[in-house]
């Protein structure tokens, strides 16, 4: 298990000399552009004669639409079209897993901010004012706001079929165990937002063939296309999408937002139409992380061995399903954490309510449960008088441990090592408050709230685990087209996929893979579009794995074709090669024989031919889970990470300064170490946000803080230095041994910080984000 190098089998055809190949911290092509403000985002698109779109949204969380009068909007100078649900030519509903969300609302409004009508005009302000001029008559209804009540059977039904969007039970091991010590706890997670800096935006251009060309930000071009085709009443091939510059995603772009709207307006007006959400609208235009209530009971021996875990999880899915069913299953599967347990009884529910719809966000159900089970682990340690790390070590999963679904972990699970390494990392010194100190270092930072008064140091640890890739039997694949040709006497490789680069660095990685596989320095990464097969979603930490796997496979196919061609053309030079069906090798852009002797340069061999291969790549198949017992093999790979948080808390004001985050994560194989560090630091920051800052405040179904003035994300002064250790235990089932990286760091960051705040304050703190008044009101 301590093997951290690649299986040699995958290396034998590669010698290293290309630079910017796998394993190097290759710089991203968009890095400098983004820092200097020169990167073109989807909000920067422009087309000759384009119109601007705007959306009218409901001010009420629950209402019946009695009438919509668009006449006043149409009268406004410069307005080209005003559309409502009546104008949707195809299906009026869409959805990722359950088709339940109206493209434009009809009959019933189910959440605050639901889209009702759309406008195209010659100026964005005109469009906005026209949208405001539309008169909607509402019959206001009482919103269902409490998910527990929603699923109680007593609440009004929000969608036919009832308010339980999904219930996932998991019954693992004997169900009648008792234990020496029983520890119960109830936890709550607030509604976090992905808060991508790039707002929803795109440009739709009607095409001469009656189809539409779209340039926009999304996470999955093909699933957008599929939904758009049904909504627009077009065959899929007439809906062509090209990925524009994406300013972050984190799950917020998995569902349709503006895509159908901007397309409808372009098709109606026959003109290019552009849409850009404002920051405020962005908060209404995408789904959020599910808030949840989690009720736990752990049975443990006096020695600290887990006997059973019982958990009831109720997630608030809001008004529409989005990816709620999958989030619900993930919460169930990862309800226990990276711990072995004899018995588990999990019931995970996701409810329809009239709150904002919730769906995918980095961590996807595993974030909510990690806060609960790690809080429980700390509580158990306290009850038993044990060191919290020792307690975790005693129960840590390892290779071959069983998940509560009964699925064995068939690759590395270095949970114990993560804990030991976290414990061994040096601790930062106490914050100085002697002569010449800077208030920036203290809780409150620039606000000058303390000079050391009331400040207590706390240290906390937490672990997290999550699946990589789509689960429960989903046919999860990606497609890559790779070509090689000679341009100006030099071999050039082109890599073409439909995978969404949302800022994670996949463009860079695709180039690294091609360089390493083909030994060719010049690689052109084609813009992602629907002219090639689906790449699946940029989510579930899966693109390096699945699209990386597809690029690898297509590169190998190109290499094999070139070598076959070399055999045909040059085989006579080495007739014995033909005889033994051995092959030439492609090394450094040269054809060599088995002894490493040059046979031909690529340029001489290939000349004006183009070698092109398109390949699909699938990770190992998974299975659905049993609907009664939750047993099955739903996941293909697991990612493990742990954090140690060091915080200073001013216990008199409740202000928190996170001093340092230390983290250890197994990445299987570090294909681009700097990109991995970026993911780890960003994920840690997002976890910090959930721990102490980020919450969409929803009061009686209404969003109260849809702005960056009041939805607070961490600034550079809130985010401390991150000390990270990257483990590389190759997963023998994955391309290059890699393990998906993106989500794991978000999961354990939050509970580690709360644990540290508990250590500093002695408070129970059962809800995130922890607000200052939670600390002061109970001190």
């Amino acid at each position: 298990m301590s093997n951290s190098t690649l299986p040699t089998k995958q290396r034998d055809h590669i010698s290293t000399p290309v630079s910017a190949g796998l394993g190097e911290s290759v710089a991203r092509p968009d890095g400098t552009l983004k820092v200097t403000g020169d990167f073109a985002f989807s909000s920067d698109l422009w087309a000759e004669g384009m119109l601007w779109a705007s959306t009218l949204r409901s001010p009420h969380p629950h209402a019946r639409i009695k009438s919509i009068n668009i006449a006043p909007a149409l009268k406004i100078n410069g307005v080209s079209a005003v559309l409502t649900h009546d104008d949707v030519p195809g299906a009026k509903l869409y959805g990722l897993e359950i088709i339940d969300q109206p493209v434009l609302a009809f009959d019933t409004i189910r959440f605050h901010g639901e889209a009702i009508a759309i406008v195209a005009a010659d100026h964005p302000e005109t469009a906005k004012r026209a949208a405001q001029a539309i008169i909607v008559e509402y019959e206001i209804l009482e919103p269902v706001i409490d998910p527990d009540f929603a699923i109680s059977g007593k609440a009004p039904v929000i969608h036919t079929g009832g308010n339980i969007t999904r219930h996932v039970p998991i019954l693992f091991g004997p169900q009648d165990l008792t234990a020496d010590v029983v520890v119960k706890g109830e936890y709550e997670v607030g509604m976090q937002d992905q808060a991508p800096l790039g707002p929803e935006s795109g440009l739709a251009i009607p095409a001469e063939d009656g189809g539409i060309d779209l340039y926009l930000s999304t996470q999955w071009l093909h699933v957008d296309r599929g939904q758009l085709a049904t909504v627009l009443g077009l065959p899929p091939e007439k809906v062509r999408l090209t990925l524009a510059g994406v300013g972050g995603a984190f799950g917020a772009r998995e569902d349709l937002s503006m895509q159908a709207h901007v397309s409808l307006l372009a098709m109606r007006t026959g003109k290019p139409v552009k849409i850009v959400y404002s920051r405020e609208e962005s908060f209404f235009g995408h789904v959020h992380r599910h808030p949840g209530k989690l009720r736990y009971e752990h049975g443990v021996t006096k020695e600290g061995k887990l006997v059973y875990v019982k958990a009831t999880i109720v997630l608030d899915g809001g008004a529409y399903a989005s990816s709620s069913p999958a989030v619900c299953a993930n919460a169930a599967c990862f309800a226990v954490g990276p711990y072995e347990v004899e018995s588990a009884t999990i019931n995970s529910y996701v409810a329809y309510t009239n709150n904002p719809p919730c769906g995918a966000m980095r961590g996807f159900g595993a974030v909510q449960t990690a806060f609960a089970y790690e809080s429980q682990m700390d509580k158990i340690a306290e009850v038993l008088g044990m060191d919290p790390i020792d307690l975790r070590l005693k129960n840590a999963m390892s290779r071959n441990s069983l998940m509560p679904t009964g699925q064995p972990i068939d690759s590395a699970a270095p949970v114990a090592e993560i804990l030991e390494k976290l414990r061994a990392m040096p601790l930062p010194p106490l914050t100085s408050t002697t002569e010449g100190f800077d208030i920036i270092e203290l809780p409150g930072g620039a606000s000058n709230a303390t000079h050391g008064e009331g400040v207590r140091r706390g240290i906390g640890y937490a672990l997290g685990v999550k699946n990589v890739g789509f689960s429960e039997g989903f046919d999860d694949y990606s497609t890559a087209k790779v070509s090689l040709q000679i341009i100006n006497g030099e071999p050039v490789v082109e890599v073409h996929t439909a995978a969404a680069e949302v800022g994670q660095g996949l463009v860079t990685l695709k180039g690294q893979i091609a360089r390493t596989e083909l030994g060719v320095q010049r690689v052109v990464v084609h813009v992602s579009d629907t002219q090639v097969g689906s790449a699946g979603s940029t989510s579930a930490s899966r693109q390096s794995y699945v699209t990386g796997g597809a690029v690898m496979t297509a590169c190998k196919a190109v290499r094999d074709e070139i070598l076959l061609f070399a055999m045909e053309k040059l085989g006579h030079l080495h007739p014995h090669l033909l005889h033994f069906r051995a092959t030439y090798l492609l090394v450094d852009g040269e054809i060599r024989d088995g002894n490493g002797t040059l046979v031909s340069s690529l340029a001489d061999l290939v000349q004006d031919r183009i070698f092109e291969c398109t390949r699909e790549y699938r990770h190992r198949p998974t299975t659905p889970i049993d609907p009664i017992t939750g047993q099955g093999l739903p996941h293909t790979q697991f990612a493990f990470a742990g954090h140690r948080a060091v915080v200073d808390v001013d216990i008199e004001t409740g202000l928190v300064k996170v001093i340092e985050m230390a983290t250890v994560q197994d990445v299987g194989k570090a294909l681009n170490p700097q990109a991995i560090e970026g993911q780890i630091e960003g994920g840690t920051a997002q976890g910090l946000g959930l721990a102490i800052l980020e919450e969409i405040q929803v009061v009686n179904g209404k969003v109260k803080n849809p702005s960056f003035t009041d939805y607070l994300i961490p600034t550079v002064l809130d985010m401390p230095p991150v000390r990270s250790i990257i483990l590389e235990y190759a997963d023998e089932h994955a391309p290059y041994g890699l393990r998906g990286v993106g989500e794991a760091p978000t999961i354990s960051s939050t509970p580690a910080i709360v644990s540290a705040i508990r250590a500093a304050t002695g408070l129970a703190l059962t809800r995130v984000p922890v607000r200052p008044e939670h600390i002061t009101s109970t001190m």
Partner: protein
Amino acid sequence: MDFFRPTSLADALKLKSAHPLALCINGGTDVMVELNFDRKRPETLLDLSAVTELNQWSEAGDSIVLGAGVTYSRIQTELHAQLPGLAMASRTVGSLQIRNRGGVGGNLGSASPAGDAHPALLATGATVNVSSVRGGRSIDIHEYFIAPKKSALDPDEIIISITIPKARGGQQYSKIGTRNAMVIAVCSFGLAIDLQTRKVGTGIGSAGPTPLRAVEAEAFAASHLDWEKGAALAPELLAEFGALVSAASRPIDDIRGTAAYRRHTLSVIAARSLKWAWTSTNEFRST
């Protein structure tokens, strides 16, 4: 929309009287937000940022006359010795980008109860100098704030400058915000000790409909400080001062914090501020 950008004060005043409904814009860090959110749709914008007179500060005896357009960044670097309380408040405003554009004139123009300059101005007993074609007048800062986002400024008036006494004792500004920077005050407190007049000035932000003054706390501190020798303050005295400041606040529950939290933390930062300011008052004693 009409847009005027005068370069002299005289032109600015003429334009303002010709267009009394023109919205002044200086740094634009409040105005542009209002425009973006469609909360304001002015017919006319009067850009004051090129008016030389508004972008200067000068000394006048024991006071600094601070041009309405002098940015927070400049206050921090150029005036931290003379106006330490206001410089501290300036440091807490927004981000560097905001501090490079915004200034006290705009803060007073918006007259938000959360404006960070206000408690510092209240504590030092500043005067707001305003002007129109009708002539000029000076408004005592304690008379300036009337209601939430409403001030004593008349529609045709422009804020020219603020006269602020130079520090003659320790000053502090302390703010409670959930984030370590870039945050609107949940509540805030400004304090100025005047060794010469033996007075203590206070200002409370974000804990009432307008910025407030804690009159009883001021009197209590002034009568209990050891003005002669500067003896250290007993914890009970600090706590009592904090309680009096808290009692002078009139906070509400909102999304940024509860009234109870505001009352509690005001008492904490007021007590701390008095301790810190009293300690630094010793530096003024020796000179």
